[in-house]
């Protein structure tokens, strides 16, 4: 399953659509503390967070994350969206709470493994 298919399955709104979404789904990471994401998330993973600050783009780009999902109806700031498009970081948003996104993401990721 690609990240794009995952986004469709979770009915996410894609606010920055990049080629990264054509990568296969390969695990996820959940945290709202960006310092932890920088230290512990792995390249290619999908990051689920409630932070909408522009630093999420820099962190995603630094770690090489597959995509960022901003949950719970938080609207990423305008600069965040602009930077994500500019730096080709895949960014999605959803009204679903983090718990539900993480649960459904885990099911998609582990199905068939």
């Amino acid at each position, binding site marked *: 399953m690609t990240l794009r298919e995952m986004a469709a399955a979770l009915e996410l709104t894609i606010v920055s659509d990049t080629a990264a979404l054509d990568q296969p789904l390969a695990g996820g990471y959940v945290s*709202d503390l960006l*310092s932890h994401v920088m230290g512990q998330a792995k390249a290619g993973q999908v990051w689920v967070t409630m932070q909408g*600050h*522009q630093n999420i783009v*820099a*962190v995603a780009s630094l770690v090489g994350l597959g995509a960022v999902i901003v949950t719970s109806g938080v609207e990423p*700031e305008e600069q965040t969206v602009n930077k994500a498009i500019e730096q080709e970081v895949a960014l999605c948003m959803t009204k679903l709470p983090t718990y539900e996104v993480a649960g459904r993401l885990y099911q998609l990721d582990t199905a068939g493994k």
Partner: protein
Amino acid sequence: MMRWFRADLHVHTVLSPCAAVEMTPRNIIRHAQAAGIDIVAITDHNAGDNVAAALRAAAGTGVAVLPGMELQTREEVHLLALFGKMRDFMKWCGFVAPHRSPLLNDEARFGPQFVVDETDELIRIEETMLLASTDLSLDEAVAQINEWGGVAIAAHVDRPMFSCLTQLGFIPPDLGLAAVEVSRNTKPGTAREKYPRIGRLPIVSSSDAHTIDDFISGPKTMFLAETPTLAELRQALTGEGGRRFRDPA
């Protein structure tokens, strides 16, 4: 003529639910005078209602009070907002109030929030939950502080909670901070090495006092300036006009 001023830029009063009842503005000023603390910034969580009492309590004591607030942004970053003029600070307080959490404080769990006068008399109890995130972003808060002539300092960046470094991973470039603060947990002179993401920003240290013991024993920052005013402290942070500052070793 210039001289060294001993400053504590982060002190809580009884308006902060987590502060001890001894932290009345009058008591803080009395202890500052006795301990030779020249400059005290009053910085309660998301509110500034005890600043006026501190200013009145300090009149004639030689202790300079800076109006301030410890704002909790929506990213859960703690940010010190310091102002030189009460008029600007009141504008800031009015700006923040509608952005606070609609929840009410739970005294039993978090502690009471007292607004008092300069003689320690209770004026009222603040019912809004102050120990919660506002919906202001860090970037818009800093921009507003700077626009109204204030000084923005990222609080206790060395702590595992409510620090710009843990919440946001690094300090957003061009944010407009005047300095970052480290707590008593970091030995003076080691912060820049231990937290390289501070970059080239000036580093101050303050007590973040919630008790009189914290206030007396906690770290202070020394400023070389002509007068104990925010305008002079700002110059000292950037090393302008012969003003400078140092972390007490």
